[in-house]
């Protein structure tokens, strides 16, 4: 992480692309040979099932190590590997503490439209990817797979497709994306539902080293199945309001922090999600 990259990489990522906007991995402007690495920590709590009957409470922390490389000015290839810690408390106070790898994700982002070559203001990109079944399927004390929401991944080969639009007009920027995952049957005969995320993030960056974000994320999930049986607490949709900031304490280092607050929950069955907190570091190599 300390060695410098090739000489064509600029001293700082934002300088190299001709736009001072601070962007997290996946939102950036591609530039040939730009290489970024990141470490992101996510925390969330979930409750599934009826209280005093069959409720499971989940506390999850994910560490996502990722790298993104742009071989050309229009293409970015990224890989992300999560390590997941889950603490599940059953209604009878039984506790399950799980450390497991999640599903490795590989993504390609290709810019299909930009209004100009250097420092474009409008970028439209297509996204394609694949999640690899690197996660382990966790079971309860009787060997029965835990509900899908409690797995560290789907354990299946899951194609990803989407589209994104980014608008840059210093000190403002806007990012809009729609990305859908299409899970296949997993290693323990699990079948997660199709999941589609719509994201809108606007950013105001009054200083070169600090920006503020506000946005929304809408997620729609199809029903999931475990060993052919519908998991009643999967499916539905949820909308989060997101509030974040991104800072550049060093020309090669970005820090970001986001709180995602559930605003509208229409998840199927007895399923409640709560505040999610995301924080991370990005290093320009």
């Amino acid at each position: 992480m300390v060695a410098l990259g090739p000489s064509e990489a600029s001293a700082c990522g934002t300088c190299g692309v001709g736009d001072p906007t601070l962007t997290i991995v996946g939102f950036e402007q591609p530039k040939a040979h730009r290489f970024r690495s990141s470490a992101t920590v996510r925390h969330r709590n979930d409750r599934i099932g009826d209280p005093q009957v069959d409720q499971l409470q989940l506390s999850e922390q994910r560490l996502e190590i990722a790298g993104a490389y742009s071989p050309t000015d229009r293409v970015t290839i990224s890989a992300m590997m999560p390590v997941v810690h889950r603490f599940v408390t059953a209604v009878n106070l039984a506790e399950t503490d799980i450390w497991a790898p999640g599903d490795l994700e590989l993504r390609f982002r290709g810019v299909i439209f930009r209004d100009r070559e250097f420092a474009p203001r409008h970028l439209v990109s297509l996204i394609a990817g694949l999640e690899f079944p690197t996660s382990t399927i966790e079971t309860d004390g009787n060997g029965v797979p835990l509900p899908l929401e409690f797995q560290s991944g789907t354990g299946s080969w899951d194609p990803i497709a989407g589209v994104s639009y980014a608008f840059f007009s210093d000190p403002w920027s806007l990012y809009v994306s729609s990305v859908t995952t299409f899970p296949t049957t997993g290693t323990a005969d699990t079948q997660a539902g199709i999941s589609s995320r719509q994201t809108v993030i606007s950013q105001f960056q009054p200083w070169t080293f600090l920006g503020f974000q506000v946005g929304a994320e809408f997620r729609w999930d199809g029903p999931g199945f475990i060993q052919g049986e519908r998991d009643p607490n999967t499916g539905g949709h949820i909308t989060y309001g997101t509030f974040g900031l991104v800072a550049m304490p060093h020309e090669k280092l970005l820090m970001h922090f986001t709180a995602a607050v559930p605003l509208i929950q229409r998840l199927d069955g007895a399923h409640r999600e709560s505040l999610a907190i995301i924080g991370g570091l990005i290093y320009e190599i």
Partner: protein
Amino acid sequence: MRSRVAIGALLVSLGLSAGCTRTTDGIEVDIAYQTPPTPQALRTDMGYRVWLDRALIVLGPVELIRCDNFARALWRLFTVSRAKAHTPTTPTSLGIPLVLDLLESGGIGFVVGTIRPPPGRYCGLRVIGAPADADAVGIKNNDEMLDRSVLLTGDIEDGESLVRTPFEVSIQDSLPNELVFTEPLVFDSPRLVNVSIQIDHMRWFDGIDFAQVAPGDAGSAAVQRRVAENIRDSMAAESQ
């Protein structure tokens, strides 16, 4: 370049790492049936001897009852008369029905399963005898219990004349029963409790004067009612 290789190697090694799971048990209640050994002949309180050829009972749902839900549980007790034995297993109940052969399993404890309830105070158990369904435990050798909750066959011997009369008691209705613990079970932290449901089938024919029953009518509705009452009275729950 070295850092790119390092990041790639880190991603691969994370992907290849194995998961680690640690589980701690919560509140658990092991449920078992316990019956006394079955002698060759039972002696009733009215002096008759009952020689049993078959003695089968199907015990279906077993449910822990919260102290604050006792009134509701009692209401449900009277609204399940047509219940079948198999119901979904929940954190406070076991839904798996079991065909208990008292001639074979008398004197042997029979573990039914484990209930994993939420914290709270539990004052009793609800046990329902009900006709079995096709996947009841033990139904394979006793498929006549598919539409019966109790089947008793054998001979009744008059204590004076020593004359034996064959009989068959067959009960199709469900037999809901409420068993109150001597001390409530209070769960506020994980622990294991064993609950034994005692069934004393030695008393099942008490209170029946077979001399007043017409010959060949030992399976009459009146006898069945009395046997059903005796079955309910013969059960008790003990916790350890």
